[in-house]
């Protein structure tokens, strides 16, 4: 089963290779990995999309935690989360296809960020289903180049029903 794991790490050189080396050394999958600094510049946040049965996912989480440069590991599948991915898609646009490309871009609320007489470069952001649906629709026009960021994900803030909220205890 696919899991999205969010890993807070020290923002220093070599950390990415430690994480990547762990996955390759132990035969775990990485479907995608994205990394960038957090608000605190001494830390970075990685979003790793991986897959495996419960035993493997448990090992992945434990092994990540064991790395000394890893500060926190969250398996987002254990909570509600939202995920996004951005793709930049360069499509061939013959004169007769340009209108179709524009329509698809509009339907997906994507943007054209670069245009030449024979190509459009389209930026699309969304969950993986949306990005892949758009790629599928553009394919008949001819995709010249495609680059995807890999997914980033964040846990949803839990919205508790009012009754379940802890009672405020009056302080003396």
């Amino acid at each position, binding site marked *: 089963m696919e899991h999205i794991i969010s890993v807070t790490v020290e923002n220093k050189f070599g950390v990415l*290779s430690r994480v990547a080396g762990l996955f390759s050394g132990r035969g775990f999958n990485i479907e995608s990995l994205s990394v960038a600094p957090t608000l605190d510049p001494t830390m970075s946040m990685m979003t790793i999309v991986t897959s495996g049965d419960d035993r493997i996912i448990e090992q992945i989480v434990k092994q990540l*935690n064991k790395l*000394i440069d890893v500060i926190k590991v969250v398996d987002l599948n254990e909570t509600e989360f939202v995920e996004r991915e951005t793709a930049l898609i360069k499509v061939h646009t013959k004169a007769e296809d340009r209108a179709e490309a524009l329509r698809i871009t509009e339907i997906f609320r994507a943007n054209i960020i670069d245009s030449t007489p024979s190509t459009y470069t389209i930026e699309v952001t969304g969950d993986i289903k949306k990005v892949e649906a758009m790629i599928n629709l553009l394919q008949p026009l001819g995709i010249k180049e495609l680059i995807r960021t890999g997914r980033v994900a964040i846990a949803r803030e839990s919205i508790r029903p009012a009754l379940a909220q802890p009672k405020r205890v009056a302080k003396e």
Partner: protein
Amino acid sequence: MKLTGAEIFVECLKREGVKTLFALPGGVVLKIFDVLYQQKGLDVILTRHEQGAGHMAEGYAKATGRPGVALVTSGPGMSNVVTALVDAYMDSVPLVCFSGQVSTNMIGNDAFQEADNIGLSRPCTKYNFLVKDVNDLAVTIKEAFYIATTGRPGPVLVDIPKDVSMNKADFTYPGSVSIRGYNPTYEGNKWQIKQAAEAIAKAKKPILYIGGGVVFSGASEEVRELAEMCQIPVDMTLMALGAFPGEHPLSMGMMGMHGTYWANMAVHYSDLVIAVGSRFDDRVTGKVSEFCPHAKIIHIDIDPTSIKKNIHVDIPIVGDCKRVLRELIQVLKATVNGDQKDLRKPWWNQIHEWQRAHPLTYDQDSNGPIKPQHAIKRLYELTKDRAPIVSTDVGQHQMWSAQYFKLSSPRRWLTSGGLGTMGFGFPAAMGAQAAFPDKLVLCVAGDGSVQMNMQEMATAVVHKLPVKVIVINNRFHGMVRQWQDLFYEGRYSSSDLSTTPDFVKLAEAYGAVGLRAKKVSDLDTVIKEAIATDGPVIVDVPVYPYENCYPMIPAGGCNHEMILADSPELKKKMEANGKVTPEDKDTVLTA
């Protein structure tokens, strides 16, 4: 006052209480060696190969419990020590290894003797550091020792570029360090410990399965108390030998591929396995799907990744073995009230039956060639009063040593378990000897593996490390030969070592003493003579070359399905290969 990086390095080692450094110099670490030259109270043992330095540091660490320290140069110095780092990582040995590196401005230029030391050591160290600024050196060394020795111990590498050792900085040594991503769990979860105690109190056929973690955490007393209180048999892994007294009535000896019949039967038929500081290695579990099918499993380990890695665990407890067992014993004391003896009686009757059925055996004809088991057993019997430290290499002699040396205390057994590094034994023994100059240190080696680090005999002679090396000489890579006999119809592909050197002359060439036991009646005299000799000795014991090590669980087999020395199918197989009579091969080397 400002100190150079090299001076800071030496100051830091002193603050860490390092007494012995296993080292080999080279261009980029000359500044450090120059400072070491003027030092008192810090012995530098110059090895003949960096792998030797690494294994010596391991032997030192295993015997003392303190971190072993090695210093090597860049490039080939570093790549030569990699085997020792992998070995230490697999067997959780606290090691701090310092490697030289080319100057920071040269890194990445393919400079002379440059290697990516951080890249090389990343998968085989607990952590590694490249020090880019001399101002970071002291705190880095402090962190390196802290990481190597806390939690599950392991090797740490510190890579020091040449300019960092030359540059100057103010020296202050931090009193403590804290690393936000590194917080080992020492105390076990109380609720889980209570669950474990309840399971133990109810179990009819429990077994303790203890591993190297018991040694590292110093939990031998606790294991003994628990075993005696609840009358639980104690199975030991290869790494745990000595953690529980081998001659204790509750000791089952070693378990696993070449473990005793009763140790393996007991774990297979138990109803509760209490794993302490062990990691369910494939050499212990055999076929995972059929590992102790009737048992609940309690697993106590400081490393969470060890738990549920290979085997499903019912009651996991993450924590330091000693502290968890202490707590567990307290809880049990309050509940079991010493009524465990009767409860466990049928279980012990069964175990005694297994012990009677298939004891460890071998046939020694007093006029025939020496059997390797006999040589090892005599070595044990003749030395046990002196409580020797015993190291081994890897192979048949290692397994026989594990079977016949019934060590009474921990930290006296140095062996390469996880990685199975041939060539480990001799330098490891030297490392232990450097820590304990007055103790008797034995190295049981094979003629194949001892040659892998033979060059260290020069180190032993120069530094007066009087290790006694007993070469169980069968002119084969014996374990390979055994597998070829059992699984490859006796085709000895590249396992024949008939051109083995004359070990007596070899010892003499290095300025050590060489002795040889030519026949069974020589054994005792030669062993005694070796022990009485000052300085390092090689005892060459030419043995019957076709002896196999049993019991044996074939790789991937089940623990209760062992090949035993007396099984008729086995005899047939060996006969078919034409290997039954001792006369098959000359058993005495031509001198």
